[in-house]
């Protein structure tokens, strides 16, 4: 308590309520001790919040690393309070024209910090953000300056939930203001379950107004299959691997021809680590939406360090595993549905006859499904099984449709719409329900978007996505027949649940929602690149207004429609188109000169 009054006195004029909150808080969340170097340091629940040896030196190192990213004019927002050594170090080297703010999730921690040591003049120059996560996010969302989030991990982890909530709220606030257009290159797989997801992502990005370059590798499927026909499996594997390498290089060539702001790969996209590293060297921003179960497909371990951003459909251990493997950023981005594809349908009588049943299941023949589905056949209801990879499932042969052929999305939607109860059993090995039941599969969202009733196995990530009133879940194999029986008897309740699920999907779970969240997550971390594009900072009208005091530049920019995104290359192309044979103005010469260097930075192939 020696220093607290003295330290807070300077803030009393500007933020009196904050000072009062700190003073009246309990404090004592941190345990103080002396570092080897002599200055005070702290622990919380036995874990060090600052270095036990030299907290100032550690803070300087952290601050210098942050400074590399933090650009002039950005508002730096520090997450993690501790004893504020890191904030002090950052304040000492902050870029000119930039402001620094610190999020205070709990006034008690601030009290500990202010009590521990005397603070300098920097203490009154910092903005202190306190209150609920929502209130702070709204405050930050209202700023016109770009935001740069700077996380001091050892201290931030003490209030991890608060920070998560804040980031979510901030993303929402920023995404509501998204008006700018990006150029996103979406790199899809050669084949597989992630291929339709890639297409949905493309559609969603376009619907959000972004320009999309769709690098569709599914056109190479037949070649890939042909290379899989060698007698020896090893040969097939080698040759298919080589094709994937070629496609990786082909992707680079496409990117070089029309450089995007962001390369978004969808799981199984053929991009090698070497190519990803080359892209990073050339300053391309890359992201991967890994729409797979990370426990089953493990190639992400080799690629973790290659992408700038990973988005995964699992949480907890999955996020930790990616971070351990070298991922720079991992975010949770669950699956979704495309309401243009998965929607309520008015079916003809013939279609109802062809696709309808009391109970249906659509999906591939994974071991647990082969073991469990026969247990849910009954004389009490009709059952139809759709999908492929059911070879040898003799006890399901009587209900298997179309001889186990793969069905397309349109047919799926008809089946969903025509069935009274759609079973949704997440895949896994073994003969039981998935023991690691965490992520929610695309089928859940697609059924919901169709306004179809479903019975799904329980997943730990369900509560954030759907309530019990939106998707009915079963927790044991034995419960399923009873649930089927119950719900078959009650079409009105089925309809009510299904409609609620559809409303939820339309409100929260479309691919447009996902793409918006993905871009905002990147934008928050790249305020100078993706962030500024999303804010519309590169639209001709905004740029022209800012260039007011250089009239010639303003004039150059006003030649473009106000809402059009304009880059240096566009202005340079405009000058080139009209400049031959006339004397160029000085500003035009400078634009052309800068552009001659810009062109060099993307010399990729």
């Amino acid at each position, binding site marked *: 308590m020696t220093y607290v009054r003295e330290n807070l006195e300077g803030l009393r004029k500007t933020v009196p309520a904050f000072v009062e909150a700190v003073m009246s808080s309990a404090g004592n969340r941190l345990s103080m001790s002396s570092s080897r170097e002599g200055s005070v340091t702290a622990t919380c629940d036995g874990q060090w919040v600052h270095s036990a040896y030299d907290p100032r030196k550690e803070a300087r190192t952290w601050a210098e690393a942050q400074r590399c990213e933090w650009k002039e004019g950005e508002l730096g927002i520090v997450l993690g309070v501790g004893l504020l050594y890191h904030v002090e170090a950052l304040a000492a080297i902050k870029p000119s024209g930039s402001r620094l703010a610190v999020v205070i999730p709990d006034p008690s921690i601030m009290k500990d910090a202010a009590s521990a040591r005397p603070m300098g003049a920097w203490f009154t120059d910092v903005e202190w953000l306190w209150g609920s996560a929502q209130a702070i996010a709204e405050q930050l969302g209202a700023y016109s300056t770009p935001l740069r989030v700077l996380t001091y991990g050892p201290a931030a982890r003490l209030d991890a939930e608060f920070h998560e909530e804040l980031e979510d709220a901030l993303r929402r606030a920023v995404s509501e203001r998204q008006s700018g257009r990006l150029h996103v290159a979406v790199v899809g797989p050669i084949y597989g379950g992630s291929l339709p997801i890639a297409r949905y992502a493309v559609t969603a990005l376009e619907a959000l107004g972004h320009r999309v370059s769709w690098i569709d590798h599914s056109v190479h499927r037949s070649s890939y299959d042909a290379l899989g026909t060698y007698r020896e499996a090893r040969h097939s594997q080698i040759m298919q691997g080589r094709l994937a390498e070629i496609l990786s290089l082909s992707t680079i060539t496409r990117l070089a021809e029309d450089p995007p702001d962001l390369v978004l790969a969808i799981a199984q996209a053929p991009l090698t680590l070497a190519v990803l590293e080359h892209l990073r060297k050339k300053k391309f921003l890359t992201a991967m939406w890994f729409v797979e179960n990370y426990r089953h497909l493990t190639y992400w371990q080799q690629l973790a360090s290659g992408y700038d951003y990973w988005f995964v459909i699992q949480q907890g251990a999955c996020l930790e595993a990616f971070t351990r493997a070298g991922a720079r950023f991992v975010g949770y981005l669950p699956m979704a549905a495309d309401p243009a594809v998965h929607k309520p349908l008015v079916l003809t009588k013939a279609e109802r006859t062809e696709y309808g049943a009391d109970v249906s299941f659509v999906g591939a023949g994974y071991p647990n499904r082969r073991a469990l589905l026969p247990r849910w056949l009954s004389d009490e209801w009709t059952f139809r099984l759709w999908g492929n990879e059911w070879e040898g499932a003799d006890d399901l042969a009587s209900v298997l449709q179309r001889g186990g052929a793969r069905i397309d999305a349109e047919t799926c939607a008809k089946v969903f719409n025509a069935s009274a109860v759609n079973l949704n059993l997440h895949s896994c090995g073994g003969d039981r329900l998935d023991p690691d039941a965490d992520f929610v599969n695309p089928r859940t969202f697609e059924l919901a978007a169709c306004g179809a009733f479903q019975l799904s196995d329980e997943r730990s990530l369900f509560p954030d996505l759907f309530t019990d009133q939106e998707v009915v879940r079963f927790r044991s194999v034995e419960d399923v027949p009873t649930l089927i029986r119950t719900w078959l008897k009650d079409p009105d309740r089925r309809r009510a649940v299904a409609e609620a699920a559809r409303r939820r999907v339309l409100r929260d779970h479309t691919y447009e929602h996902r793409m918006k969240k993905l871009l905002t997550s990147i934008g928050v971390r790249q305020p100078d690149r993706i962030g*500024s594009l999303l804010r519309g900072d590169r639209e001709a009208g905004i740029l022209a207004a800012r260039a007011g005091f250089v009239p010639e530049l303003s004039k150059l920019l006003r030649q473009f429609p106000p809402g059009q995104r*304009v880059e240096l290359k566009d202005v340079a192309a405009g000058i*080139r188109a009209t400049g031959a*044979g006339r004397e160029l103005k*000085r500003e035009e010469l400078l634009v052309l*000169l800068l552009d001659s260097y*810009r062109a060099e*930075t993307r010399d990729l192939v």
Partner: protein
Amino acid sequence: MRRALMVQLARLGDLLQTVPAITAITAADPALEVDLLCPAPLAPIGRMLPGIATVLEWDGVVWNHCAKATGSGLQSEHLQDAERRIRMLAPRQYDCAYVLNQHPRALLAGALLARAMIGPRREGPLGGQLTPWAAYIREVAVTGRGRQVHLADALCGICGVQPSGRLAALRRASCALPGEWDEIGQSEGRWVGLIVGAGDVERVVPLDTWRQWIIRFLEQDPRGRVVLIGQEKERGGQLIDLLPPSVLGRLWDVTGRTSLTELAEVLVRCHRVIGSDTGPLHLAAALGVAVIGIYFARARVHQTGPYGSGHLIWQAGETRENMPMAAGSIRPIRWPIEETVAALVEGRIGRSEGWTVWDSHCDRWGAYYSEANHSPTPPYEREALWRNMCSVVR
């Protein structure tokens, strides 16, 4: 006093090819103050060029950063920063810029730094039409066929002057070399600088060829010494690994460790310099050291041979005097090891299968090359081209 700026933003060899143009311009107008704009890393050589008052250093790395900064949206600050950098280079505009590259950034730099521009394009940086001498250089670059006007002389043409017919020596103060390198050239015997690499991969002489060459030369000249020169330190090390220990005491390796000033010092301490990398070859020639050029791939003696008199050039391909050179890249089927060693040690120039050998000369129309062992005959075509161009230009 009128002020002019030579703009040369290309590589070392190109910078040295500018010397005849500077000489001719200053001879034509002795009152003209001539400065040079060159890439910052080449500034030490720029300062050696005769007739240059001040060297302006063009820092490509900084300009790259400026261009990258616009990635966050083109703003007035970016142009103001660019303008500030131009003003820092030259607070006052020059009366005239002589631009010697066709690259847009050289033209733009010229247009920004000077009120008038003489260069490869007729109507400023975006003009589509080339001036006659620029068109000539472009045609030579595309077809590979020279009309026997050397590139350095064609640059004089671009500047609207005729070559003086002599190569003014570089201005250079001798300097000490670090450590054991200071022994280079100090003891008696024939010191040969051997350029181990080349900027362009297809112009690289195989290491085994250089291995054989060194062994053969040191056998033929018991007092001979070899200095390995060039930027490729690894290549220098690999070459040493290939050589028998018995020759290592007569070998110095300075590859990859010399500044340009030190490189110039090493070159002047050698009696001859041999290699295929035209940058250091031109530097040696400009420093007055006789060179043996090994020209193949896309290198053509008549276009970019070492300037001045007394140099020998082995040119791959069966080209004879007054015959056009083959276009495209020429890959030798054998290397003139014995022949170049014999020329160096005995002064004897014999036939070389797959190669022609040329002596360098200079006259009032600039540089020319005649077949070795023949009396020098200036090519008629060169004079005709100059006369024709002069009438067009004037």
